[in-house]
């Protein structure tokens, strides 16, 4: 055993390495006039980050949402307060798939049908929303921190078996911002494709090679109202590409993921 001095020494050594790296980095400041995203790399554009860890679940997303952003409010309203359709029966409309992990799993089972079976090992929200303080955009500082993080949507993680092949998967759905576009987790990968669908949704797909013989297939669909659907399957036990290799390839192809994401049974 040692004491905290060893940890402090480790921090100081890492600081020294950081300073050396910083000295090598070009400053690369953006121009004073701010064309949209002029500073950022291609993959920095979306407000929706490509999924961050939320409490207890190794999948999800983080949104940075200005509270007075009309686009954001419209998106959330569109997803949450649309009046129910007029009906002559007393049957209530089914809850949205992202209402809870249980509903999401149930709906996924219906969408998957005979294609495969799955076991859920983790559940949680679909996204954490960090909200910036409301304007004004100028003047004195407002608050010390942004508003508390809010969690929205649902996610499930587990293993999935299709045609005798088993691998890890994760699946998330949450109401995001209307107008956001889907992107691959690794947009620079040659396998990444992004396209618009006739209904106004955007669809991103990709296949990522992992260490060893690991492969992860990904699909991301963002509907016009901002509803986000994301899914990954891997031939490793974890959809993040870690854990033991369970098969030679993921249990579902990218094309099958697209069929699942665009199913009208959600």
């Amino acid at each position, binding site marked *: *055993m*040692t*004491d*905290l*001095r*060893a*940890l*402090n*020494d*480790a*921090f100081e*050594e*890492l*600081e020294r*390495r*950081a*300073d*050396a*790296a*910083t000295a090598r980095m070009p*400053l690369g400041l*953006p121009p004073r006039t*701010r064309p949209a995203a002029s*500073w*950022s*790399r291609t993959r*920095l554009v979306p407000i929706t*980050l*490509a*999924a*961050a*860890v939320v*409490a207890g679940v*190794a999948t999800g997303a*983080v949104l*940075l949402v200005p509270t007075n952003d009309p686009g954001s409010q419209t998106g959330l309203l569109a997803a949450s307060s649309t009046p129910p359709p007029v009906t002559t029966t007393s049957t209530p409309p089914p809850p949205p798939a992202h209402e809870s992990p249980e509903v999401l799993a149930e709906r996924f089972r219906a969408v998957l049908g005979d294609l495969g079976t799955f076991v859920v090992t983790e559940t949680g929200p679909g996204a*954490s929303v960090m909200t910036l*303080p409301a304007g*004004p*955009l100028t*003047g004195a*500082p*407002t*608050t*010390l*921190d*942004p508003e*508390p*993080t809010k*969690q929205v949507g649902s996610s499930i993680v587990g293993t999935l078996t299709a045609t005798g092949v088993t691998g890890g998967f994760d699946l998330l759905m949450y109401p995001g911002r209307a107008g956001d576009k889907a992107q691959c*987790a*690794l947009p620079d990968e040659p396998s990444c494709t992004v396209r618009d669908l006739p209904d106004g949704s955007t669809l991103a797909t990709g296949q990522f*090679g*992992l*260490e060893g013989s*690991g492969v992860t297939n990904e699909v991301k669909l963002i509907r016009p109202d901002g509803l986000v659907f994301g899914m990954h399957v891997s031939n*490793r036990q974890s959809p*993040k*590409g*870690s854990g033991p290799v369970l098969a030679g390839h993921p249990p579902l192809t990218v094309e099958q993921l697209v069929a699942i994401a665009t199913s009208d049974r959600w």
Partner: protein
Amino acid sequence: MEFAEYVVGRRPALMRFATVLTCQTWLAEDIVSDVLGRAFERWDRISVMAEPHAYVRRMVVNEYLSWRRRLARTSPRAEVAEDVPVGDGSDERAARDAMIRRLARLPRRQRAAVVLRYYAGLPDAEIAVELGCRVTTVRSQISRALATLRVDLTANPHTYQETR
């Protein structure tokens, strides 16, 4: 504060924080660049906060914990684990490098909790907010992490505050 002013003044501290968090300078560079890119797009709002740096640092933590960063393919470039702690024969250096390797092998959330408490000097309640979990979870994560790091708090108990 203008964004350029923030970058000039705070990027070194962000790089230090990100490097301590990731134990890898290449990953720290990548994360800091990405986060500054997103901060730039929202600087009008971030800059009016009382503690813009605290917010940007939180963005760094979130980016580090994001699943894109967790892809296994991003892990083999670890520069820390490859270090061999016998360069100068110093016991102190060997202990330090061994500690860095143990730190690098911690699960991400445990490492984030340890860094936020012992490097950034945040109280557990703020760490819980940053990591989106309960205070009891923070404490159990830190407890497990310290056991893995083989740190005995009773040996020399003190904490660290970020000064830059």
